[in-house]
C-alpha cells in the first residue's frame, strides 16, 4: 500500500515537473526550446549512475554476506539503470541534433563511455541467464557488476579528463548550485524533475526487488520439486534383470 502511494506521488510529481518544464519555463536565449529536454536527460543520467551504484553495492554486500536479497537489490539496480541509461542517451540525442547539429559523435568521450556503460549492464543482465544455480549466478553477477561500476566515474569525469563535444558538469561546483548562472526558473525545473524522477526510481526499484524475490521463490519451489521427484525415483524398486543361464555364460 505504501509502495503504491509512492508510485502515485511519483506519477503526480513527474506530471507537475513535465508541465513546468514544458510550459512554464521560457525558451533559452541560445538553445531555444531544446533546453527543455535537459530536464529529463540530466535526471535520467543521474538515476543511471545511482542505479548502477546500487548494483555495485548490492553485489559487494552479496559477496560479503552471501545473502540473495542483496543480489535481488543488485538486479533491480541493473535493470532500472539500463532503462535510465537508454533514456539519458535518447534525451541527449534529441537535444544534440538541434544544438550541436548531430545526434551522436563517437569521438566524444562522454557519449562513447555512456554507450559502453549501457552495453556493460545489458551484458550483466544477459549473464544472469547463463546458470540456474542462484548462488553461482549471484556471484558471477556481483563480480561483473563491480567491474562494470568502474565505468561510472569514467563516464562522469570524461568531460573533465578529455576534450569532447559534451559540456562539463552543470552542477559540478556547489557554488554554481547556490549561485546559478542560469535563471532561477531553469534551476527549479531541473531540481523538480530530478526529485520527481528519483521518487519514480524508488518505486520501480522496490517493485523490481519484489519481483526478483518472488521469482526466486518460484525457482526454489521448482528446484525442491525436482529434488523430491528424483529422490522418489531413486527409492522406487528396480525391476530385477533375468540372470543368464549358466550354459549361456560358458558359451
Amino acid at each position: 500500500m505504501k509502495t503504491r502511494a509512492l508510485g502515485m506521488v511519483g506519477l503526480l510529481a513527474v506530471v507537475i515537473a513535465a508541465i513546468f518544464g514544458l510550459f512554464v519555463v521560457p525558451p533559452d536565449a541560445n538553445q531555444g526550446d531544446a533546453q527543455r529536454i535537459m530536464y529529463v536527460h540530466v535526471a535520467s543520467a543521474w538515476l543511471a549512475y545511482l542505479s548502477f551504484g546500487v548494483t555495485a553495492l548490492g553485489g559487494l554486500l552479496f559477496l560479503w554476506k552471501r545473502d540473495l536479497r542483496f543480489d535481488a537489490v543488485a538486479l533491480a539496480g541493473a535493470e532500472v539503470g539500463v532503462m535510465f541509461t537508454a533514456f539519458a542517451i535518447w534525451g541527449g540525442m534529441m537535444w544534440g541534433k538541434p544544438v550541436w547539429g548531430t545526434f551522436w559523435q563517437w569521438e566524444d568521450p562522454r557519449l562513447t563511455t555512456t554507450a559502453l556503460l549501457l552495453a556493460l549492464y545489458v551484458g550483466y543482465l544477459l549473464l544472469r541467464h547463463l546458470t540456474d544455480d542462484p548462488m553461482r549466478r549471484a556471484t558471477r553477477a556481483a563480480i561483473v557488476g563491480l567491474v562494470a561500476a568502474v565505468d561510472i566515474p569514467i563516464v562522469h569525469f570524461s568531460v573533465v579528463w578529455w576534450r569532447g563535444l559534451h559540456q562539463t558538469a552543470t552542477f559540478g561546483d556547489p557554488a554554481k548550485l547556490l549561485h546559478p548562472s542560469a535563471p532561477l526558473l531553469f534551476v527549479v525545473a531541473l531540481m523538480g524533475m530530478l526529485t520527481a524522477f528519483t521518487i519514480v526510481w524508488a518505486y520501480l526499484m522496490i517493485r523490481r526487488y519484489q519481483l526478483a524475490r518472488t521469482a526466486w521463490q518460484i525457482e526454489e519451489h521448482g528446484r525442491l520439486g525436482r529434488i523430491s521427484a528424483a529422490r522418489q525415483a531413486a527409492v522406487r524398486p528396480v525391476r530385477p534383470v533375468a540372470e543368464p543361464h549358466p550354459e549361456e555364460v560358458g558359451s
Partner: protein
Amino acid sequence: MNDALFVIAGYGVILGGLAVYAVTLARRLRAAREESLRIRRDARQGSEPGR
C-alpha cells in the same frame, strides 16, 4: 524538424518508456505472485493427509 518536435520526441519516449516499464513491471509482479501462490497452494494440498 524544428525544436518542438525534438522536445516531443525526447519527452514522449522517456515519459512513455517510464510508463510502459512501470505497467509491465506491475504485470510481471502480479503474474509472479499468482504463480507463487498457486505453487504454495498445490504444495499445501499435496502434503495434506489422505491425498
